[in-house]
């Protein structure tokens, strides 16, 4: 707001807050290496996808190789029933799968923030209505709904899939962010800001939102895991565009091309394992974020000692 009557020292307050947060992150990573491990796996997959043209000489749609050949020096991951190089499909497919996953996760989180925070802060009928709506969206099973929507849309490309998953996947985050907004808006610093005559929207965006950033990030991670799984499921069922190479459509073609019957494990294992590992990496990162928002979960090597101390005090 107006800067005239704000004390000069105030710019250091957010800097200090940020510093404290970094220090907290540092301390968590000291006690728990899982988030670092997760970030490394995720980075590796992103790098593989981005550098796909450098890592394989083949095009993912090229069908000129011997069909169903096992992994060899020429084809590291073998070939499909129609003679495509699986390594090329795996690398290029990762681009679409990760892109759709993150895009959908981002859309879902954005909606969760908007639909969770704003009505909660406004209160009254808007909040009651939105809370009920959120709870309904939460209990209606997601995958069947996605299947029905994509069936009506017909020939859904990655963009439509990302949009549909994002638009249906916000409820869980909205519910968590709503209750956190309700808690925070009763805290002293928010009440103080309100009494000082701060603008309502400014309080929401500048005071409340920064204090639940770890929840928002946790939601982004969580929504992205769900989105990658949902995307792969839809594509495996043949509800995506099967001509676009992704990890999901690879599995669709593997199933349709009777990879199991032909013993072509190299066709089935890579895409599914990649989906699982990306999901695992995000979940590992989430362990760190959870500890940021819930200190009790922190893995503290000396927790036995502190517990004894507490016991002694009692």
């Amino acid at each position, binding site marked *: 707001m107006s800067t005239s009557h704000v004390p000069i020292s105030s710019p250091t307050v957010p800097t200090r807050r940020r510093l404290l947060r970094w220090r907290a992150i540092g301390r968590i990573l000291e006690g728990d290496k*899982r988030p670092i491990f997760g970030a490394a796996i995720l980075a590796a997959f992103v790098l593989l996808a981005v550098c796909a043209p450098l890592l394989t000489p083949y095009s993912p749609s090229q069908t000129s190789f011997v069909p169903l050949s096992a992994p060899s020096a020429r084809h590291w991951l073998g070939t499909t029933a129609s003679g495509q190089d699986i390594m090329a499909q795996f690398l290029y497919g990762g681009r679409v799968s990760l892109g759709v996953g993150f895009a959908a996760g981002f859309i879902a989180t954005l909606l969760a923030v908007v639909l969770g925070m704003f009505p909660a802060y406004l209160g009254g009928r808007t909040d009651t209505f939105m809370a*009920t709506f959120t*709870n*309904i969206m*939460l*209990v*209606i*099973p*997601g*995958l*069947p*709904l996605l*299947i*029905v*929507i994509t*069936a*009506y*849309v*017909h020939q859904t490309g990655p963009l439509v899939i990302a949009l549909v998953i994002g638009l249906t996947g916000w409820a*869980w985050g909205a519910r968590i962010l709503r209750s956190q907004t309700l808690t925070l808006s009763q805290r002293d610093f928010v009440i103080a800001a309100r009494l000082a005559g701060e603008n309502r929207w400014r309080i929401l965006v500048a005071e409340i939102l920064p204090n639940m950033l770890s929840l928002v990030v946790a939601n982004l991670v969580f929504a992205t*895991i769900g989105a990658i*799984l949902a995307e*792969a*499921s839809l594509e*495996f*069922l*043949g*509800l995506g565009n099967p001509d676009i190479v992704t990890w999901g459509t690879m*599995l669709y073609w*593997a*199933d349709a091309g009777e990879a*199991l*019957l032909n*013993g072509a*494990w190299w066709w*089935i*294992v890579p*895409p*599914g394992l990649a*989906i*699982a*590992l*990306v*999901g*695992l990496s*995000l*979940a*590992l990162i989430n*362990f760190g974020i*959870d500890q940021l928002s819930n200190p*009790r*979960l922190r*893995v503290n*090597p000396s*927790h036995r000692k502190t517990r004894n101390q*507490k*016991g002694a005090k*009692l």
Partner: protein
Amino acid sequence: MQFVRQRLAFLLVSLWAAATINFILPRLMPGNPAVLMIGRFKGQLNARALKALELQFGVTHKPLWDQYLIYLNNLIHGQLGLSLTYYPVPVSQIIAESLPWTLGLVGVATLMSVCIGLMAGIYIAWHRGGKWDGIFSTMATFTAALPYFWLGLLMLFLFGYLWHWFPLAHAYSTSLTPAFTWPFIRNMLYHALLPAVTIVISSMGGWLLGMRNNMIQTLGEDYVLFGRARGLSQSRLMIHYAARNAILPSMTGFAMAIGFVVGGALLTEVVFSYPGLGYQLLAAVQNEDYPLMQGLFLIIAFSVLITNFIVEMLYGRLDPRTRGGVSK
């Protein structure tokens, strides 16, 4: 009583919402997709069936509100229309044939995965920071990220194609006729084992991790500390003090968890050609059998909503805090 009334109201509202989504979706899509479908079936159906179909999917000049009332009225009377793939078999009959398979599979698998997940979660939270905590937590995180259908494909490949331990598809051998006899039941269980194990492995991780976190939370409570100070036995503290109070909060996530499990189970059915709702749903989508697809979606949504209601009722009975909390 207030609690029951409130949950019942929510059940009714969510049932209505699911039904309304079902009604709106085909009408919301650009260039009503049902027009194409109806065009495809024009020669094969009689005039009355065609008319009913047009009404069901909004390819008519009747006002939207009238269509909606007719739709709700049909729904209340259990009329979901006729399947186009199996014309003229009513959708409700196909649902009645496939629902028991899904209920059995998902029910048993969920019960097993909840029990195993909770027990393992209690154990590793008690020994948190220990060797098993690390191993189980990491394993559970990995299995929770496994796509159901992929795990199903691997199981089918290893135990079906490679080692021939289990059948490759269907709910029972085609040479048998369904009956309440021991050979048939044994055959049925034999066919259900692989899909059930797939669901248990994929869904267990979430329960385990949730229970572990809640248990750690309760272990930090003062009454546990007090119990320890009084010198209560370890098992009494673990089960009666901590676990009993930690189980209830892990059930609050049940609503979403059951939605995921059902979604995963539908995919598992597709992989194992198990004749439940998921298998039928995919077939309906592939055949553009929209009446069947709508009916299946509704019954899946309704089953999940009602299961949820039942769990919430049990939960409310067991934990008085929720009864007060909701009405606040």
